[in-house]
Each structure stands twice: as C-alpha cells, then as structure tokens.
C-alpha cells in the first residue's frame, strides 16, 4: 500500500471515528466519546474536532479539572468555538486563573460581540485580578444586555461597596433585590448599605426592618430560654463577620479577653479568622452554617448572652436571633440602631459608657503636623457624598488649607487585594473632591495620622469611627463633628458625652462648615480636651469597663 493510500485510509478511519464520537457525545455517552476522541488524538494530535468533542464531553460529564487541563489546547485549535472558549474561561475562573480566562473571553467578545454571560464572566475575571473598575464596568454592561441578570446585579453592588461607592452601591443593592426579592440577603445588604451611607430616613429604615422581620423571621417559632441560672460564670457568644476592623481590635477583643480571663465562657461565631483573640477562646466557623444550623449550634453551646456585631451586614444572623437563641441578645457597635427582631436590643443604650484601648503611637518618631491642614476622619472604605460635600465646602471657604484624610485601612489575609482596594478607593475620593470643586493636590491620605493639639479634625458624620475620634481627642486635637441622622452617624455622641464635650457637636451641616471655617481662620479658638489623663484612664480601663459591661449585659 502506498503512503498516499495509507494516509487516505487513516483519514477515512479518523473521519469515521470522529463521526462516532460526535454521535456518542450527542447521546451523552461520554465514556465512548472520550475513548474515540483519545484514539483520534493519538493518531492526529492536532485534530480540532476531536479536541472539541473531548472537551465538551468532559465538561458535560462534569469532569471539570480534566476539561480545564485540555481546554486551552482545544480553545487554541478551535478559536471560533463559542462553547469551548466560554466554558474553558469558566473553568479557568473556577481554578482562580483569571488572566487566561480574561484572554479567552476577550477573544470571544471580539469575534462575536457582547453577550451578557460572556461579559459577566469577563467581569469576574477582572474582579479576580483586582481590576475592580473594569469589573464594575463589565457588570454594568452585563445588565445593559440582560437587565434580569441577578448575579451581575449582586456582584456589581458588592464591588461598588468594596470601593466605597456607597450611594451607587445602595442603588445597586436596591436593584438586586428587585431581581431576587425572596432572598433575605438582598434585603439586608440593601438596608446595611443604605444605613451606612445615610441614604435612608429613620422612618423608611423602620419600615424596611419591619418588612424584613415579617418576611424572613419564621413566625411562631422560638426557643424556650430559661433565665441565666448562675451569675458566677456565664457563657457569652459574639457573632462576627467580615474584615478585621479597628474597632474589633480596640474595643471588642480586649473586652472578650478580659471577660475570659475573669472566668466567663466566651465563644466567637465568625466566618473569618480573628488574630488577636486569646487562644483559649474558641472560634466557631460559621461560614458553612445555615441559619437553622447556626441556631442549633448556639443552643448546643448553651450560650446565655449573645452579642451580635454584624447588624444587617453580609453574614448577619438576624433570622436566627429572631428565634431567641439566648436569654439576652444584644447588638453592639456595627448595627443600624434598630433591629429586624424585637428580641435584640442595642447594647450602647444600656452601656452608656465607652471603652477604647489606648492607641500605641510612637511619640518619639512623631512628625510635626503641617500648617494649615485639616485632618479628615474617614470610615473604613471611603466617604459618602454628604460628608465629601461638607468637607469640600470647608476647603473652598479656606482656600489656603489642605486636608489629610485618615483612612482606616482594613486588615486581611489578602493584603495585596486590600492595597488595590485602598488605592482605588482613594482615587475615587480624589475624583469626588475634584467634582465638588476641590483640587486633588489639596488632598492626601495617611493611614496613621499623628493627631496633636494643633490639629483641626473633620469628622465623618454619616459613619462614625469612634476609635479614631477618641485617639484624636485624647491627643488634644479639636474635632468638628455633627450628630448624624442614623445610628452609624450617632456612635460618637456617646463618646462626646463621656468626654463631657457634647455641646461641641454641630447640629446641621451648615453649622459644621461654619465652625470648621471659623477654627481655621482663628475666629474660634481651638478647644483641646481638658484633664486628658482622667479621660484617658477612664476610657482605657479595661478591668473597670469589663466589670461594667458584664453587669450591664446580665441585668
């Protein structure tokens, strides 16, 4: 047989094998399809069709890892196959390889134009590579193509929030819940975001929470809880979710550690690690627990007092708390001021006292505060428009002054990601100040501002940061603050009361602007806190505070 004949025979037999493999794939007979395509590839390694069938067969048979491994070759040989390119991109995304996924999707979109699912996948790829701005743009495009794309709406909201686009995130969460109204998360995240950014009135917030309770907390079901039997040793559970914020380290953990040292049983229910907690305090991972299982777990742990640190934020356990898991249930620090269940109450109202661990700044390396510079106390990620508007108005009235924004950097086991987030949030703030008429050059950022008695600090009155505020006041700085309209903007009130300077709080944004301007122009004298030591010792006395704390939560 001549070489030509042999080749033609092989060609015919490959063609037959290929036809059989396609038939097998169509009949979902994946085993045969794989065997046949393997044989073809053995004979002709660059057979595009065989690769395509093999990939499809593996994918449809849910052998994702194998599909992913051979997918790149299949995509290369079949550059126009929509199925292979998109699904290989998905597999790469699942395997946390966003760069090749983005490449595949880019090629797909270039060839065939934008389709909602491809654009969405591309957005995911961008998000995984820290290109949040591009991700936001792609999520938006997904919704342009398909306004009912629920996942895109959710991811868009969460990414916007991450970068500090509070108002846009609120709007987006609102949209998401239209698409997924049966999900309690869609409602609670909207409530959380709207409250943190002061984008809802108190009346509307109450209505939202009432509705949430009515829809999502099972009716007529609650545990029969006995009163706390012995007051010598009590079991206290803390519910926590999310990043490590400053207030967790400076307020909650010292209290929890102290109570544990004093003999109480402390348990943390958290969906993330908490570094600075005493080692003998158990942390129950709640990431995979449903609300019902979470409730069971708390009951098994015989928790007497449950302290929620989540409010309505992502990962909250309001549904479970609505079943009355412990004899006393409180929410502390990071909540909305009112709750979806009457079985939870605000701890602040009972405590009437604040504890904040002493700031550990290195006094020796302290640099002098630059002249004519305000310090701005920002929140965890960004500032809402209302605050920017007020701060910008101050800067416009004081044209020689600049502003150093004290950004409270988030801590995480993914520092690279966080640094990208911080950078992009800062860029966003600069853009917003610029839009409000303040030159970017007048704004800078510092995550460790050295407050001193010459500093005039402008507060974030929508979402207070009591830790930085106390640090600022104890170092003798003058604070310009305003009582916010909702609880996140009213947390400083208690602190100011404790410092006996409540009268310094402004009542309206216009008063805030006037006072800051008057202080800057020397028309009003700086007002450092009197008897600093007394305040410092009282504020940072952990033993005293934990006694008070314990007594309060039991009573």
């Amino acid at each position, binding site marked *: 047989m001549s070489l030509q004949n042999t080749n033609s025979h092989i060609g015919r037999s490959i063609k037959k094998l290929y036809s059989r493999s396609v038939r097998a794939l169509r009949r979902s007979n994946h085993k045969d399809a794989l065997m046949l395509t393997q044989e073809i590839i053995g004979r002709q390694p660059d057979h595009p069709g065989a690769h395509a069938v093999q990939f499809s067969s593996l994918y449809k048979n849910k052998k994702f890892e194998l599909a992913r491994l051979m997918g790149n070759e299949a995509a290369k040989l079949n550059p126009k196959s929509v199925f292979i390119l998109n699904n290989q991109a998905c597999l790469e995304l699942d395997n946390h390889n966003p760069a090749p996924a983005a490449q595949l999707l880019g090629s797909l979109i270039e060839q065939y134009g934008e389709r909602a699912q491809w654009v969405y996948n591309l957005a995911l790829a961008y998000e995984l590579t820290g290109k949040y701005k591009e991700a936001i743009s792609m999520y938006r495009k997904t919704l342009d193509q398909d306004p009912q794309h629920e996942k895109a709406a959710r991811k868009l909201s969460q990414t916007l929030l991450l970068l500090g686009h509070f108002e846009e995130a609120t709007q987006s969460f609102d949209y998401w819940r239209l698409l997924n109204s049966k999900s309690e998360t869609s409602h609670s995240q909207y409530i959380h975001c709207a409250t943190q950014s002061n984008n809802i009135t108190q009346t509307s917030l109450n209505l939202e929470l009432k*509705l949430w309770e009515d829809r999502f907390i099972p009716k007529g079901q609650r545990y029969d809880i006995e009163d706390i039997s012995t007051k010598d040793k009590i079991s206290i559970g803390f519910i926590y979710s999310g990043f490590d914020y400053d207030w967790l380290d400076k307020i909650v953990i010292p209290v929890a550690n102290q109570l544990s040292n004093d003999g109480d049983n402390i348990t943390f229910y958290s969906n993330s690690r908490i570094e600075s907690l005493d080692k003998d305090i158990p942390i129950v991972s709640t990431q995979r627990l449903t609300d019902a299982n979470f409730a069971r777990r708390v009951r098994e742990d015989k928790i007497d007092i449950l302290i929620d640190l989540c409010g309505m934020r992502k990962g909250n356990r309001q549904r479970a708390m609505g079943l009355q898991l412990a004899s006393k249930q409180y929410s502390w620090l990071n909540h909305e001021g009112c709750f979806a269940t009457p079985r939870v109450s605000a701890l602040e109202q009972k405590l009437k006292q604040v504890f904040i661990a002493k700031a550990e700044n290195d006094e020796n390396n302290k640099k002098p505060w630059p002249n004519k510079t305000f310090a701005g106390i920002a929140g965890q990620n960004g500032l809402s428009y209302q605050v920017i508007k007020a701060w910008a108005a101050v800067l416009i009235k004081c044209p020689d002054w600049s502003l150093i924004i004290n950004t409270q950097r988030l801590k995480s086991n993914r520092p690279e990601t966080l640094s990208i987030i911080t950078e992009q949030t800062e860029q966003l703030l600069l853009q917003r100040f610029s839009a409000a008429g303040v030159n970017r050059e007048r704004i800078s950022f510092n995550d460790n501002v050295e407050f001193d008695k010459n500093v005039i600090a402008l507060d974030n009155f929508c979402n207070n940061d009591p830790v930085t505020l106390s640090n600022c006041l104890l170092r003798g700085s003058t604070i310009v603050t305003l009582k916010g309209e909702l609880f996140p903007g009213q947390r400083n009130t208690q602190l100011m009361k404790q410092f006996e300077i409540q009268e310094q709080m402004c009542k309206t944004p216009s008063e805030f602007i006037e006072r800051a301007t008057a202080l800057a122009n020397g028309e009003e004298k700086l007002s450092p806190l009197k008897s600093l030591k007394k305040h410092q010792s009282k504020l940072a006395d952990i033993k005293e505070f934990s006694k008070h704390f314990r007594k309060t939560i039991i009573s």
Partner: protein
Amino acid sequence: MKRSDIEKLFNSRQYSKALANLGRDGTSHWNDTVKLRCLRALGDRKQALANAKKLLSNIESQKTPYQLNDKESEEQYRFIALIFSEFGQANEACQIMKTLCENNPDSPALNREYAFALSNDDQLDDAEKYLLKALSEEPSNANTHAQLARIYCRTGRVNQGYNSYSRAASLEPNNPTFLQRLVYWSNYLERTTQRSNYQLSQLWAKNAFPKNQRGSNTWRTADPDKKLKVAFVSSDFCAHAVSFFIKPLLEGLRTESTMTVVAYSNTKTPDNITKEIESLCDVWRNSSALSDKELAAQISADQIDILIDLNGHTSGNRLAVFSKHISPIQMTWLGYPSTTGLKSIAFRITDDVADPINNQDNFYSESLIRLPNGFLCFEPYKDAPKITPSDNQGIIRFGSFNNLAKISSQTFDLWAQTLTTVPNSTLYLKRQQLKHNNARNNIIEEFNKRGISSDRLILKTSNAKIEQHLNEYNNIDIALDTSPYNGTTTTLEALWMGVPVITLSGETHVSRVSGSILHRLGLSNLSCKNTQSFANIAKELSENEKALSELRKNLRNTMRNSPLMDGNLFTQEFSAMLRKQWQEWCTERNIEDGLQAPTTTILGASK
C-alpha cells in the same frame, strides 16, 4: 343567570353584560355589591354614586331587603367608601371609614382604606399617619407601601417615596405596575443616570411584555407619498401641560393636506381644552373607556401609519398598546422625559440640547430623532396677565412654582447656596401641596440643615385660577429651576412673565429641558454646570438691576420671535421628520418585500 356565571363575566371584564344579567331589584347583599363593582369598573361615575348613596341610606336606615351580618355590613360600607373616594366624594368616604376604623382600630385593611379616602380628600398628613399604622400591623402589604410612596412623592419627599415603591415592587416582583412607578420616579432622583433609568425601564418591559421586540407592522402599503395617518395617544388632552405643546402642532398640521391627524383620547375628565383639541383633529376617538385590547383593535382598524405616544410612563399611559406592532412606525414624544424601554417604539423625539449627541443614545430603547429647533413648541395662556413687577423693596425675590416632587436634595443645595451667596434675598415657593404640614416641614428642615432660616422662605399654597397663578410671577425677580427634574411648563411660564430662569444642566434629558428652552431664547448664559456657578449667576443677575429690568421688559417678545413659539416652523420640521421616517420605512419595507412575505418582521437595527 347563576352567580358563578356573572362572576365569570365580571372576571373576563364583560362588565356591561354582568350588570345586565344582575337581578334588578337588589334582593341580596351580593347583588348590590356586584352592581357597584360593575359600575366602578365601567367608570360610570353618576350611576355608581347614585347606587352607592342609595345603598348607604338603606343600610343606615336598615331598609335593605336582606339581613346583613356585621362582616357583610362592613364589606358594603367599605365598598361604598371606595366608590365615594374614587368618584370625587372623598369627604363622605372619610366619614364612613373613620367610623369603621374607630370600631376596629387595629385592622390594617381599614386603616389603609381610610388613608386612601383621606388621600383623595387631600388630607395627606392624616393619610400618611394611617398608612404607617397599617404597615405597623401588616408590614408586607405592597399596596400600602405604594400608597405611602404616592404621598411621600406628592409632598416632596421623593427619596422616601422611591424607597416605598421599591419595597412594594420587591414584595410583588411580578407586578409591573410597581416597577413602572419606580421607573417613573427614578427620573426625580439625582442619583439616576440615563443608564440606570434605561436598565429599570428594560426590566419593567421584560416583566410587563416579555415578548416585546423591535419590529414593525408590515401590513401596510409601502407608498412613500401617501397621505399619512398620524395618530396621537394621550390621557392629557385637557388642562394639562401636554396640551400647551400639542396645540400649536395640531393647528399647524390642520393645514397639511398630506396628513390625517387622529387623536385617541384617554382623558378621564374632559374640559374646554379637550374640546379645543378635538376641533383641531381630523378624527377624534374617545378611548378612555376602551381596554388596551379594544384600543389596539381600534387603532388597527383605523390603519394608522405613525402612532405617537404622549404619555410614556406617566399615569393613564397606553404602553400596553404600543408594546404590540400596531402601526408601522411607533414613536414617543413630549409627555415623559426618558426612554419607555419598549423596543416596539422605534423613535423618541428630542433635540440636541436636551439630548446631546453622545454615547447616552445607547441607553434608550428608541432611536433618538433630534428636531433642529427644539422638541417643544409653546403656546402660552391667552389671557396671561400683564408684566407689572411689584416693588421688591431692595430684597431680591427668588422663586419657584415647580412641583414639590422636583425639589430634590440637589435642588435644596442649589437654592440654599444661592440664598447664602445673595444674603439680601428670599425664596418664594408656591404649590398646592404646601398646605400639608409634612411638606412644609420637610422644606423648612432641609433649608435649616443648609443654614437657611425659615424667615427667608415664603411658602404659599397655589391659587386656583391660572391668571392669578401667572400674576404671582410679578412678585418674583428671578426664578430658580429644579434639578435633576427641570421645570418645563413652569420654566416657560416664568419666562413668559418676564422672569429669567437659572438652571443647572445635568447629563440626562430630564435635567436639560430648561437648558434646551433657554438655548432657543439665546439665554444659555443662564444655564450652568455646578452649584457655585448657579449661585454666581443668581448673584450677578441680582446685582444687575438694569439687566433684570431689560429681561423683564423684553422676554415676552424674545419668546414670541423665537423658534419656541414658531408654530409654523415647528410643524414644518415635525411633519418633515414624519415623512422622512415614513419614506425610510417604505424603502426598508420594499427591500424586505423582495426577501420575504409580509409579516411582522424585525427591522434592521436603526440604532
């Protein structure tokens, strides 16, 4: 006929048949109730009220020919109250509902219905109170949230209103009505972009008309020169802003021999202006009692070539009719400031100031047609009072007679900044809703937050007659526009009374309408981009008494001589545009004809 058969007729909207088959003597509770339901559904105000009154009197004097238990009696009272509320006798409805609520104060349904009566009786503060009470008992009732939303919006608290509509929509995600309200009210929010509005509109369209697609009715002869049948569909052919703008066009089109003008009027309460408009149309069809299906059939039968919607998402709209391809070309114009979200409406009429040519076009489901000299043609009120400004005694009097719903947080910022920049000034706001305490308090509080004390505000409820209303402009020196939702008629009225209007031009159509109007008058210098410029323009103008006085003297003439009031020019441009679109349709149709048999086809993307 059996009760079940009558119920069936009612449920299939055959109200007249159901009514005809009811026992005439009203011998049962059921009979009386169904009779009222039918009359209500038919919109027969006179009969419905007469029957409701008779029934009320019978119940009160215990003369009903049947025995009523407490529940049945309450049911009938509630239905009578509903009839009274809806047909203009809300005060009587309030009395009935008040008694019912007193007997059963914790009933959310009664509280809600009482609030409905109060709201129709314009007692909005009390209505709000009862709605909040109803929600405290029944937090997941979508209707109650929607009613509350309506009150919030009417009293100038649109953010709260929007939130309430959003809750209603989230409670009933398959009910497109609430979603449509969200679409509409999103135009009033400063955070709304063209993109987000488009997204919401599309979501509504997908919910309400899942099969809606771009296309055309091709069962029409493709004759580019034929006498066109152009039809306008509106619920506002009455004393409504839309009429002021449609009249000059209809007057112009009367002389056009190349077009037949048809009007489908959904106006519930016709008036003298309805009659005037009717006289300007070649064919007038009162379609207010027709269902969407019936109206669609009527339009199809009339063989309309170009069908123009004048409502958009405003109340009384007939977008359901437009969701089908009833006419070869379907357009939207005038009544609503953004996209409808319906792919079956191919065009939206605008201009290049209100909608500058940029990538925002992608966020309209329609293709934008920009008329060269503006998308509006204004006909002022004939008996407008003379321009005789009163003495301001050295105090600059800013003013705005815009709808309270348009006074957004951004508007408060603009106005407060203006009042701060011009210290010797006051702000005069006039609106019917200002009689409600919640509306007044909201305004005072918002200004207070911005450092403006209430003694600089003059808050008045509006006068009933238009002459008096216009005459009030003689007590204003400079009008301040609202943002993002600009005034349209209000802006034009102020200008007609010689009062310059300062506006902030934004990115969306709704926030650029006053800019478009001022541009046509050569007054683009009164349009600005940010709060400080807004206040600065106000300051400069207020310090330049001569310029103010010149404007006052000349504005009316300037308007008369501008394209804004040139009905002939506008008609020419409008009819030329219609003819051009028709010719393009014919060309496209002829190309398609060669390819396939006539059917509903997808037009090539004209975007």
